[in-house]
């Protein structure tokens, strides 16, 4: 029987965490718990409070109210050797050698100098940067620098990894490498919390997402649960009248999608988009089309994307932030 309470504790737990900067409430009563070995996406528009929350988790700043438990301890500094962190603002010591930067951060996380050096070379080799090991980091491209910083944050093989916008500024190839690194860690049962506002990454990597807007948590659940907050869609391409489909029970709405010119004439409608209820079978719509003689050029049923969910849940906030 395991008697160590820390061993059973969730890797991360926030209870009613609030942070004020003067009169401005940056984080508002946020609570959540991460399960061990999970990948959780921390989503939200710019200025939603993601970075502030992550900094509070790491005890870089203190919450105004609420409590945070990291790896079973009330202070992240107590377990800093078991945490990895990649901040949003990324940078390296320009004159230091690449291996040396990784090794330095690893020693700060408890590795011996020898072990840190060995680990740095091992990681650089695994992720294709071996040739740059002895070069100063100022010789690296932006993508390489970001990879090196990621490697520096995980060189000590942490149990909990916190990544703030790990994909920002990376080209698609390097984004893929970054995804691979995250999957590698998840494969070794590490717990990962990463913030992003690129929904595709979250959709591909996460089992669970947390959505935050204006400092408040607005969604906490699996991707499937998130998608269920929006009706499913059916796309129909036809030149015939689809009026009969409106009568079908379970069809929530029928909207024409027009050309980019947005002209009013029916000849400009490229396809129709139907929103259907959770229990509605798209086959019933297809059967009705055949029964009513509607000639189809295309028929496609799709679930809402995370992007759709994000836009619906935080859309007004996101637009507001974008204009700020």
């Amino acid at each position, binding site marked *: 029987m395991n008697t160590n309470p820390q061993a059973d504790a969730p890797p991360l737990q926030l209870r009613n965490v609030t942070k004020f900067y003067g009169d401005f409430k940056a984080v508002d009563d946020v609570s959540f718990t991460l399960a061990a070995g999970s990948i959780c996406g921390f989503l939200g528009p710019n200025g939603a409070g993601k970075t502030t929350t992550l900094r509070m988790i790491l005890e870089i700043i203190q919450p105004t109210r609420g409590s945070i438990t990291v790896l079973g301890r009330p202070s992240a500094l107590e377990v800093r050797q078991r945490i990895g962190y990649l901040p949003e603002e990324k*940078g390296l010591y320009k004159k230091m050698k690449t291996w040396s930067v990784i090794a330095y951060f690893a020693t700060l996380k408890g590795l011996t100098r020898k072990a840190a050096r060995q680990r740095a070379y091992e990681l650089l080799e695994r992720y294709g940067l071996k040739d740059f090991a002895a070069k100063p980091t100022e010789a690296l491209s932006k993508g390489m620098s970001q990879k090196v910083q990621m490697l520096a944050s995980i060189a000590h093989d942490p149990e909990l990894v916190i990544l703030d916008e790990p994909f920002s500024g990376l080209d698609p190839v390097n984004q893929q490498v970054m995804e691979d690194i995250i999957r590698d860690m998840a494969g070794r049962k590490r717990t990962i919390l990463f913030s992003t506002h690129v929904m595709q990454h979250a959709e591909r990597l996460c089992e669970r997402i947390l959505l935050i807007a204006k400092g408040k948590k607005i969604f906490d659940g699996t991707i499937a649960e998130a998608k269920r907050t929006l009706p499913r869609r059916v796309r129909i391409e036809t030149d015939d009248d689809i009026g009969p489909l409106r009568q079908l029970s379970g069809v929530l709405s029928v909207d024409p999608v027009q050309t980019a010119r947005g002209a009013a004439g029916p000849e400009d409608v490229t396809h129709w988009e139907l929103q259907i209820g959770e229990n509605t079978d798209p086959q019933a719509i297809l059967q009705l089309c055949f029964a009513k003689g509607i000639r189809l050029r295309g028929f496609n049923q799709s679930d809402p994307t995370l992007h759709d969910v994000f836009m619906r849940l935080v859309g007004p906030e996101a637009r507001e932030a974008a204009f700020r």
Partner: protein
Amino acid sequence: MKYAFLVAWREYAENAKTRGFWIGLFMFPVIIFLSVNVSFLLETKATPVRHYVLVDQSGMFAAVVESRLEQLNPRWQPGTNAFKAAQRPFQPATLPAQIDTNADLASLSRDLKPYLRHEKNLQANGRDVELYAAILIPRDIEKRIVRPRAGPAGKTASTNGIEYWSANLADTRLRDEVEQAVNGEIRRREYLARGMDSAAIREVEQTRAPFASLDPKKEAGQEAVSGADIIRQWAPSGFVYLLWVAVFTVSQMLLNNIIEEKSNRIIEVLLSSVTPGELMMGKLLGIAAIGLTLVGVWMAALFGVLHWKSGGAPDFAGPLLVALKTSKLIPMFLIYFLLGYVMYAAFILALGSVCNTIKEAQNYMALITMCMMVPLLTMPFIPKDPNGTLARVLSWIPIYTPFAMMNRVNADPPLIDLIGTAILLLASTAASLWMAAKIFRIGILRTGQPPRIVEMLRWLKG
């Protein structure tokens, strides 16, 4: 503390690799070497041979002036070729034939001006040379000699006597030599004219009473003030300068370092591994170690060169070495370096933490630099009155204590000054560190405009 040492080690290792560190490390030994070993060379070779023309219409002084200038040959130096004729620092040049040396001084000087302005060259030993100075002695100089009790006309005639023309106003050696030679000759003639024995007068002028400087603080029988004593009194000033350079250099390193971490956005990832206190302490220790390496190498170089040169030329090397070995200069230097460094480092840490770029920091740094100028400006006055008001007041101002007390080390300052200022300095250093830690903790994560003073005061209260 383990994390602070890890940070300190990186600071040390990375700063020790910079070009600036190595330049700083070797600059001082090179300067010491040059100043003790090449000083004669600088004195003799660096000053070019200068050419003059002497037009003595009176015919009374040319010989004595030439004789005096002949005696100015540079000293023979050990190691130089003994058979090589030493070169006179002032050499006569030949006037062009078209210049009439019998003309009045106004037209003569007009003719010489193009040469004095270096628009034209003269000849000396068969080659073109620039004319450095022209000395014109009028025909009727006898009438213009200023004599006491000779009436108002004689007294005001001084501006119409011998004319010394030169574009170089800074170096008055030639003028002084000529003036002394001419006046010596005039006086010799005066003695003769009055029927006095000039040789007897010279003998009388050379009679003197032995005069010894004695130091009451020295042991009985050894009170005579030697060259070493004078050096001992002035040596602390050199150490004050060294202290200033060392503190300033390492403070600047510390500032650059913090700004680099802030501007490169490394600080946040560091703060996920170490506390702001550990980070600050690590930086303080790492850069202190760099500073100690610098001053250690400087001291070793100083001792090395003085050992090498003691007993030979220059003659101050031996006494200076004795002064260093027999006084508290070195240990006090190290103590005041460490205390002074920590005191200024606290300001720098606070300043660096609130600035995002070197440009922003320079505005504040100017203030610190201005404060740091005071010890340099007052440095020459303190050895003259090491326990006087200025020295004592500066000693009790903590930011100046290391410099002022360093300057007083060999003057046996009162015990109250020695202990009292040390306690005050320690307390102020601790207080500065405490304040710096408060500002550093908040400032280090701050971006955008540096905070106002009022805001920083609020951080101190918080």
